[in-house]
């Protein structure tokens, strides 16, 4: 009997290799349009210009925030550098009635939801724990715990279902943001199961930026992340996360499917974290600069600029105006951040419970007495 010399040593030599991932792209890094039959996108030049403006402004907001952290004005900042297209594309696909559940890095989505970036700075400065009303913008507060929001989003989507707000002209949908690292967490996998079996109106938007702090993608998965969705029972697809047009088109379609009652979709936006995980991190410890350099050639902003500039769809005055607006926003949020008042010391006792609580009240009183022991006679501290 012939014995097959099977390559047991390498478990990667499967007879059935993992299918090569397909990347949905509508705008190449060089700025060429590449229409996709499944994702038609009709946008006017003004609409594309508007997306360009979004990309530039959110990058500038991010840049200012990093600088503010370096000056000691913010405790920490999680940069979105490199992920502008994934966030603006998906963010602009949302209807006002849809609900978004962000991580702590979704500054571009926040922008698209109409949130003043100063609100983000308040959060990262510690002036408050989320100074915006999630219902006003249908943009939930940032979630710090990795992947936890995917379950909240699933529960919210099931609530929409229960309210009968799925289907019809004005159907609603939910989008849950998370990263590649989060896909290793139990919570995210459990949310996939729940969303699937309940056919919840949700889009799982995974920004695969290749790095979970220092853990590279190959430490998180052996299959392309979007292919996991099939195992949970809903479609998954990979989009060029640095292509704002593709991200917009793909997310629009997935949201529409969810609104119509067709259940969840997972979108893997294939992108790159160009900066550190947060301002506490130093990526030079664990990744090669060659990788960073190769991604610079796929910059999400430059390709839109190329698209606009070459056939003369936009002139220098347009780009200058956008840059001037970025400068203005930068100056405004910088000034706002530096003049934010420190929260009152006793405010830490607020919102521990909704109703008065004897223990908290006693500690507040104790702290007030302690603080007042430092007061001079004229009431100054």
């Amino acid at each position, binding site marked *: 009997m012939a014995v097959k010399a099977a390559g047991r040593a390498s478990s990667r030599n499967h007879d059935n290799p993992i299918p090569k991932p397909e990347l949905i792209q509508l705008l190449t890094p060089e700025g060429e349009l590449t229409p996709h039959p499944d994702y038609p996108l009709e946008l006017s030049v003004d609409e594309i210009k508007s997306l360009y403006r979004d990309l530039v402004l959110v990058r500038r907001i991010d840049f200012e925030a990093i600088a503010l952290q370096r000056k000691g004005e913010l*405790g920490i900042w999680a940069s979105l550098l490199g992920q502008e297209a994934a966030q603006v594309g998906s963010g602009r696909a949302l209807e006002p009635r849809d609900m978004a559940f962000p991580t702590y890095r979704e500054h571009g989505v926040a922008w698209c939801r109409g949130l003043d970036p100063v609100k983000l700075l308040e959060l990262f400065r510690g002036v408050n724990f989320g100074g915006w009303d999630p219902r006003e913008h249908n943009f939930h507060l940032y979630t710090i715990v990795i992947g936890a929001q995917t379950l909240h989003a699933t529960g919210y989507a099931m609530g929409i279902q229960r309210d009968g707000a799925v289907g019809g002209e004005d159907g609603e949908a939910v989008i849950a943001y998370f990263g590649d690292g989060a896909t*290793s967490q139990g919570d995210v996998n459990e949310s996939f199961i729940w969303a699937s079996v309940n056919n919840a109106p949700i889009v799982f938007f995974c920004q695969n930026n290749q790095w*979970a702090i220092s853990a590279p993608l190959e430490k998180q998965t052996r299959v392309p992340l979007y292919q996991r969705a099939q195992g949970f029972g809903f479609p998954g697809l990979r989009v060029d996360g640095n292509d704002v047009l593709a991200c917009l088109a793909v997310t629009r379609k997935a949201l529409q499917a969810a609104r119509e009652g067709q259940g969840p979709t997972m979108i893997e936006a294939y992108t790159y974290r160009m900066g550190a995980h947060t301002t506490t991190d130093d990526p030079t*410890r664990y990744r090669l600069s060659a990788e960073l350099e190769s991604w610079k050639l796929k910059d999400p902003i430059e390709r839109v600029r190329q698209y606009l500039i070459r056939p003369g769809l936009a002139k220098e005055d347009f780009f200058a105006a956008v840059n001037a607006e970025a400068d203005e926003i930068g100056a405004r949020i910088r000034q706002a951040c530096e003049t934010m008042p420190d929260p009152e010391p006793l405010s830490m006792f607020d919102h521990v419970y909704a109703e008065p609580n004897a223990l908290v009240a006693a500690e507040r009183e104790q702290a007030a007495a302690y603080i007042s022991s430092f007061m001079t006679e004229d009431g100054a501290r």
Partner: protein
Amino acid sequence: MTSGQTRQHRPRAARKRPAEPVTITYREAMRAAIREALQRDDRVFLMGEDVGRYGGCFAVSLGLLEEFGPERIRDTPLSESAFVGAGIGAAMGGMRPIVEIMTVNFSLLALDQIMNNAATLRHMSGGQVGVPLVIRMTTGAGRQLAAQHSHSLEGWFAHIPGLKILAPATLEDARGMLWTALADPDPVLIFEHGSLYNVSGTLPADAGPVGIDRAAIRRPGRDVTLISYGGTLGKALAAADRLAGDGIEAEVIDLRTLRPLDDAAIIDSVSRTHRVVLADEGWRSGSLAAEVSARITEQAFYQLDAPVQRVCGAEVPIPYARHLEQAALPQPETIAAAARAVVG
């Protein structure tokens, strides 16, 4: 394979003469302990998030990947339940894993593995299966990491039978507790307060394993006993300095091991000073400080000249703004004020 098996270890090289003391940080002392364990016992390996290429979120394992390779310094996916559970399995299979959970806050994702598995398997297997696992994690507040990344939950874990809980507060203990913990046949959790990693001092060059069953008197005194551990010990010692300026001689006890507690050391000190202040970063209600206080009341009630006082973390989610966070934690001033109050 049961956990009862042991292997011959290479004896440590005899030293010709006492080595010179070395200046070292808490972080480096912990790293030296991990390195020694990896060198002495090939069953030992380190596993956790960012421990390899990054060198650990708090840089404890910096350089160990290069020294020991990826089989023994293992980066994991973001799956706390998985890598703690896998550590339990490896320990059951005869290995001696050191599992690093980035911070205590993330241990909550592995709580079922720690509490319902590691802590119970010996009992529920009729003594057949032990879990000689060491789990290290950073604990505590004080670094502006906000309410979800600043917990002091070692008191919770000290509630659980089947576990041993250590809180190294000194360089000697950072250097010495790990090996003793690895030699223990049952799961041991080591809580490293995040504020300690940069603390620097001197250690004998041949510093090695220390016991993990006794509290320590870090400063003798006769007027009042300050009981603390981990990241709050330094604040208790600073409070004792202030009190000395007022003519109050405070004795400072470092609990070191939070489960089992060294009742004898506590009761002995209280029986000499007759006054106690407990300083614990954990929330007061249901805290470790509450447990110690109860034991003093049970065992030394008639030795007390004043009610036991506790200085604990404010019972709020830990604030993110620096000045609020500092106000929410025990500080040398607040510990000293409580001590003055009981001394009267």
